[in-house]
């Protein structure tokens, strides 16, 4: 079976969790015997490489000038169509086209019709969910492309029950069209990382325990909520044995820094910026607890990575994380009140045995339920059933491509 993935991000060009998702999914699909191509964007010109038995074609979207993000995406999609048609000519057409989010909807839908190939879409998040509604013309267009992708796709894959509800509500889809396939982590990549003995010294004083946040610095990820909670922990509960390490970057960074300064926490908070996966996993291994107070989170790969590294986690009691964590087993599920987060942190700081027990439970759960091998097998099963259905359906098409 030949599968073509269209994705706007793929390592080393990573913006969020999507690129990592596509990397591991395609790697394990190839491991399961699929013939996998990925077309993605490149910031350094057109290129081709084979990554873990996956053929990766990078195209240069900067061939065209763009006036805004939407036109940039359209330009990129147009070039992806041309690339896919060339590949189809050279290697034969794919059996399945798999797109990820609205960002590749344009090319995926066109290729579906031009090549007569079933389309699968994974909706990682919706525009309505990310912004709490549609408030601008640009958002309306993004929402429209999301709807189009979900309408045109044979099956819509989402990562959690929360997302099933959201997608159903946002796009009025029949429930049998939506399939839940959770995200996963590559445990081996995390296990092989051994932190340097002096690593903790780079981030914290010897007596400080690291509270870790990983994520884009945007409103929906809630880093500001964690700073509020951390302020309560340090200034109200007077815990001086803690350090907050904030990994990532984003438009909210200046505000977060100002918040830290306002609370007089500049010696207690460390902004790392973006760091490599190796550094991140090492940091997760020396941290005490991970906190992910997202206001909107369809799933949260960073939560899985933290758990696989042996971190107990504090997550919202709604959205995707709510389905991953069992309360008081691998961590705590909380409402997003800073006081509640601060109390849970205090609880863990006062009970190292509880923290260690949660750490073991978290690792166990990941190995049992959230491996890419399992997820890739699941998606291959979806492809097979779609191809069977497609073979039974009459699809009148006039072009022999």
């Amino acid at each position: 079976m030949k599968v073509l993935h269209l994705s706007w991000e793929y390592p080393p060009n990573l913006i969020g969790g999507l690129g990592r998702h596509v990397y591991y999914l395609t790697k394990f699909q190839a491991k399961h015997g699929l013939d996998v191509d990925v077309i993605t964007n490149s910031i350094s010109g057109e290129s081709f490489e084979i990554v873990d038995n996956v053929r990766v074609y990078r195209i240069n979207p900067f061939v065209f000038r763009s006036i805004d993000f939407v036109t940039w995406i359209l330009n990129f999609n147009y070039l992806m169509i041309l690339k896919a048609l060339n590949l189809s000519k050279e290697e034969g057409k794919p059996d399945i086209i798999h797109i990820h989010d609205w960002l590749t909807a344009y090319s995926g839908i066109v290729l579906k019709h031009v090549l007569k190939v079933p389309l699968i879409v994974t909706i990682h998040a919706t525009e309505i969910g990310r912004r709490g509604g549609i408030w601008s013309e640009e958002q309306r267009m993004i929402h429209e492309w999301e709807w189009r992708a979900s309408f045109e796709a044979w099956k819509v894959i989402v990562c959690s029950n929360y997302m099933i509800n959201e997608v159903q509500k946002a796009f009025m889809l029949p429930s049998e069209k939506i399939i839940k396939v959770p995200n996963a982590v590559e445990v081996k990549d995390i296990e092989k990382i051994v932190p340097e003995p002096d690593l903790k010294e780079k981030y914290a004083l010897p007596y400080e325990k690291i509270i870790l946040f990983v994520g884009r610095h945007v409103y929906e990820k809630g880093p500001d909520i964690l700073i509020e909670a951390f302020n309560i922990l340090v200034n109200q509960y007077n815990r001086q044995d803690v350090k907050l390490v904030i990994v990532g970057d984003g438009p909210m960074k200046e505000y977060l820094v100002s918040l830290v300064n306002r609370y007089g926490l500049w010696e207690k908070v460390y902004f790392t910026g973006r760091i490599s996966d190796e550094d991140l996993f090492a940091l997760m291994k020396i941290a005490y607890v991970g906190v992910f107070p997202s206001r909107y989170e369809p799933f949260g790969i960073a939560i899985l990575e933290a758990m696989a590294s042996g971190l107990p986690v504090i997550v919202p009691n709604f959205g995707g994380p709510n389905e991953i964590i069992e309360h008081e087993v691998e961590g705590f599920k909380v409402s997003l009140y800073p006081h509640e987060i601060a109390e849970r942190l205090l609880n863990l700081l006062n009970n190292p045995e509880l923290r260690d027990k949660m750490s073991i439970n978290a690792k166990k759960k990941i190995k049992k339920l959230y491996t890419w091998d399992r997820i890739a097998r699941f998606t291959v099963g979806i492809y097979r059933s779609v191809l069977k259905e497609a073979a039974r359906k009459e699809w009148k098409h006039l072009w022999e491509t």
Partner: protein
Amino acid sequence: MTDILHVSWEYPPYRIIGQLAWDIQEMVRGLQKMFNVVVVHPGPLTKRYRDGEIDVYMFHDEGYPKRNFIVYAYELTFNSLIKLPYILPYKDYLIIHSHEWLSGMIGLILARTFKKPLILSVYSLERMRSSMNNMLSLSIESIENYLLDEAAHILCHNPEVFNMLQGKYGGKVTLYRDIDQLRDLYLKFAGNRL
């Protein structure tokens, strides 16, 4: 007879923006005596109709947000490509001939799909249309340049355009004179096929 596919942004009577619609109709009517000409163009509905002996396939392109002209161009391309596979019969076209950059975007994808050469007719360039002032759209110009690079042949319908493109594209550029010249150009692409 050999099949030629023309892609246009406008064609009478359903879509007339300016003189181009009539010029293209005159051209394809002239060609019809020598080739089986099929025309594709956008319009208010999706249907097949005949213009004399010419088969015309119109695809519906209304009802989408026209946020800016680039977005419109992509929506036009999208609408053509999701509808044409269900109305336009597959034929062993000799040439895909597009008129101007808007239909050139569709034409290039059709050319790659059918594995045929693209001839791009150019009536004006973005730099000329904008009088090189601050109305110049670098986005449109970059698409135009890409299509010019990708086309197998460029047919200029304006001596000024011809002068501007000849230096860069050399023998790939021709200044359009008449139907007989266009027929000869098609025959050149046909090689041993005819």
